[in-house]
């Protein structure tokens, strides 16, 4: 399931909703991305996430289908926020449920790595040294490339 929203989310409630009624689930792995107070060498006060409505949902849906095809998952959820976010705010939630932990750990990591390179989000950072659009990092591509099919 994919949700793109301005509002915050409650990881506990999302966990309950994801697992409700499915007793085949043996483990859930989740990743929560949070706004931290630095970006590289620069201190950070806040950031604004811009996205491409429509394409975001389409790309996240494709990534999710890919994960469901690669691992035996019982349930999957991606919630991504956009708009202005302050320090400590939650940005993204990836939650994966499976009968066994290996599939859940691997699929969660796969989803996080891929959404960072495929989902059309752009960060505008605000700090004491000014504001700027963030440039993409080669390390993000490298993290995603680990999952490329040989």
């Amino acid at each position: 399931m994919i949700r793109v929203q301005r509002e915050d989310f409650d990881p506990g409630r999302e966990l309950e909703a994801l697992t409700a009624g499915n007793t085949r689930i043996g483990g859930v792995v989740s990743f929560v991305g949070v706004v931290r107070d630095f970006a590289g060498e620069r201190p950070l006060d806040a950031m604004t996430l811009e996205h491409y409505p429509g394409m975001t949902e389409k790309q996240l849906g494709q990534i999710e289908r890919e994960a469901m095809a690669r691992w035996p998952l019982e349930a999957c959820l991606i919630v991504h926020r956009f708009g202005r976010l302050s320090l400590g705010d939650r940005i993204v939630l990836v939650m994966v449920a499976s009968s066994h932990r290996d599939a859940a750990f691997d699929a969660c990591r796969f989803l996080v790595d891929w959404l960072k390179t495929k989902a059309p989000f752009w960060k505008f950072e605000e700090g004491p040294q000014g504001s700027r659009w963030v440039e993409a990092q080669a390390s993000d591509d490298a993290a995603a490339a680990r999952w490329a099919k040989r």
Partner: protein
Amino acid sequence: MKLLYFAWLKTKTGIAEEEITPPPGVTDVASLLAWLKGRGPGFAAALADLSAVRVAVNQDYARPGDKVRPGDEIALFPPVTGGRA
């Protein structure tokens, strides 16, 4: 053809969204970008370094040789920077 601009491509061109009818020679992503470059200083600045520009056609990532057609939704944006955690 609908064109969308995001992040600093929106800032530099001064446009978020526009409806355009390119000349007949514009048939793929590469020729579209070349034509856009000549539309004014904002476009020239935004498209000066094409290695920093990504293009989507109908919400899927596109390459320079991919076709563009009337009615398509074309988006221009920088490489995505969703996260670094």
